[in-house]
C-alpha cells in the first residue's frame, strides 16, 4: 500500500496520553478541531492504555472505557482502521470460545470449524496491524455481557450476529476506499466472512435457507456498523469527519 492516504503531517494534532485527549475534548471540542482542518492521530501511548492485553489472543482488559478515534479525513487508512477494530473484536470472540472448549457442548466437528474461524480472524487482525503500521497501534477492549462461551446455542447465536455484521460492514465501507488494491483486500476478506456466516447459520439451522437468507446481503454505513459493534466494545468508537454520504446498493438500506 502506498502513502497516498497518509495525512498532511502539518495539520495533525497528536495525542499521546488520555489526559491530553480529555483536555482536547473539554477545551476545544472535537468537531471544532476537525472544522479547523486538523487530523487526529492516536499515538502508541494512548493506544497502550486502551487495552494492554495479550498480544497473541487479543484479549484485553475489560472496563477501560477509553476512546478509539478514527478520522475519515485520513482516507483509506480510516476504513482499514475500522476494519482492524472489527477484526480485533472477532479474533477475540473466537479466541475466547476456543479457550472454552473444555467442558463445553460443542461437537468435535464444531470445535474444528470454530478453530478454523479463530485462525482466520486472528490472521485478519494481525494482517491489518501489519498493514497499518504506526496507524494500527491501538487495541480495543471487547465485552460480551456475560455471554456463556461454553453453550453451543448461545455462542452460535452471537456468532451469527458477529459474522452478518462483519459482512455488512465491509460491504458498506468498501465504497470509501479509493485504491483498487485496498478495495480488493476488502473483497478478499469479506467473502471469507460470508463463508463463516453461512457455516455458522448452517450449524444453527442445518439444510434450511438460513445460510443465505436473501439474494442480497446487507451493506451498512460505517456509522451504522460502528453503532452495532459498539455494543461489544468497551472503548468509545469515535468517528471524525465520517462520510456524510452513504450510497446503498439496490436492495440495501
Amino acid at each position, binding site marked *: 500500500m502506498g502513502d497516498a492516504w497518509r495525512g498532511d503531517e502539518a495539520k495533525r494534532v497528536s495525542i499521546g496520553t488520555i489526559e491530553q485527549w480529555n483536555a482536547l475534548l473539554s477545551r476545544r471540542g472535537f468537531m471544532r478541531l476537525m472544522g479547523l482542518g486538523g487530523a487526529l492521530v492516536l499515538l502508541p501511548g494512548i493506544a497502550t492504555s486502551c487495552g494492554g492485553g495479550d498480544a497473541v489472543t487479543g484479549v484485553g482488559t475489560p472496563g477501560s472505557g477509553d476512546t478509539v478515534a478514527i478520522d475519515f479525513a485520513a482516507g483509506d487508512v480510516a476504513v482499514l482502521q475500522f476494519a482492524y477494530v472489527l477484526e480485533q473484536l472477532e479474533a477475540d470472540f473466537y479466541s475466547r470460545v476456543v479457550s472454552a472448549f473444555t467442558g463445553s457442548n460443542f461437537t468435535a466437528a464444531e470445535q474444528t470449524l470454530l478453530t478454523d474461524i479463530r485462525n482466520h480472524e486472528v490472521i485478519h487482525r494481525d494482517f491489518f496491524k501489519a498493514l497499518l503500521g504506526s496507524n494500527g497501534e491501538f487495541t480495543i477492549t471487547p465485552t460480551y455481557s456475560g455471554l456463556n462461551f461454553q453453550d453451543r446455542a448461545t455462542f452460535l447465536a452471537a456468532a451469527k450476529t458477529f459474522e452478518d455484521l462483519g459482512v455488512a460492514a465491509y460491504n458498506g465501507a468498501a465504497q470509501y476506499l479509493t485504491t*483498487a488494491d485496498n478495495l480488493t483486500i476488502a473483497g478478499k476478506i469479506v467473502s471469507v466472512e460470508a463463508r463463516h456466516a453461512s457455516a455458522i447459520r448452517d450449524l444453527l439451522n442445518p439444510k434450511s435457507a438460513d445460510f443465505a437468507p436473501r439474494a442480497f446481503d446487507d451493506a451498512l454505513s460505517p456509522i451504522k456498523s460502528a453503532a452495532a459493534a459498539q455494543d461489544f466494545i468497551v472503548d468509545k468508537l469515535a468517528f471524525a469527519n465520517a462520510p456524510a454520504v452513504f450510497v446503498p446498493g439496490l436492495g440495501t438500506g
Partner: protein
Amino acid sequence: MPPKPPSLMSTVDTEIIDAVETRAAEIAQGASASSKLVAALALGSVPIALGALATDLWGQAPSEVVDALQLALLLEHLESDFYTRGISAAGMIPVADATIFATLNAHESTHVSVLRTIIGAKGATAAPKPVFDFTAKGSVPGFVFASTQYETFKMLSQAFEDLGVRAYKGQLPRLISDKSTLTTALTFHSVEARHAAEIRRLRGKKGWITGGSRDDLPAFLQPVYAGEENGTQGGVSLAPIATAFGGPDGASEAFDEPLTREQVTAIVGLFLA
C-alpha cells in the same frame, strides 16, 4: 415447395436484433455514427449493416462498469441455468437437500434479473443467455442431470459458486467510481460466498478454500482454484502471522482471491455449447 431455410436474422437472438434495430433508428434520426456504418445503412444491405451496427454497438472500447456487469451476468446465467435444470430434474436432488438448491436457484435468478436491469439502466443491452453444455464438452462425461448424478451435480455446484466469488471479486476495482453498482455487486459477491460455503459443507468439505486445492473436483476445474494459495496480502507476508494459526493453510483460507476477466471467461467458455 421445400421449406424456406432459416434466414440470417432468424438465427440471431431477438435481443440483439432489438438492440440493432434501436440503434439503426437512432442513426436514421440523426444520431452520430461512423461513415462506414452510414454507408452500409444507405446500401440497404442487411448483412453488411448488421455487422456494422454490431460493431457500432459493441465493438468500441467497452464501458468498464458495463463490461464488469456483463461478466457477472454471464456467471449468473451459468449458475441460474444450472440450478433451474437441477431442481427440475426428477429424482436427482434428495428431498432433504431441496431447500438448499431452491434457495440457490431463487438467488441466482434474482441476480440475473437485477444485473439485466442495471445494465439496461446504463443504456447498454444485457448480453443474452448463452446455451450451456454442462458436460463441458465431454469433460464431465454423460452428465445430463440424471437421478444417479447428484454427486456430480454438487461438484459442479461447488466449482460454480467458488468461481462466482472470484469473478465478482476480480471486477470490484472496475466499479470503484460507481458506488451504487459497487455496493450492489458486493452484496451479490458475499451471497455467492455464502452459497459456496453451503455447498462445500454439504459435500463434507470445509466452507473455505485451503491452499489452491480443488478438493475432489476433476482436474479440468483446477483453474477455478488457481492462485488461491496466495500467502502475501497487500505486501504483508502472512507466514509469520499465521504460524500458530493454521500456517499456510490458515493464511490461504483467510483470504479469497480474485480471478481476472480473462480467467473467468476461459473457465465459463468450457461450459458453452
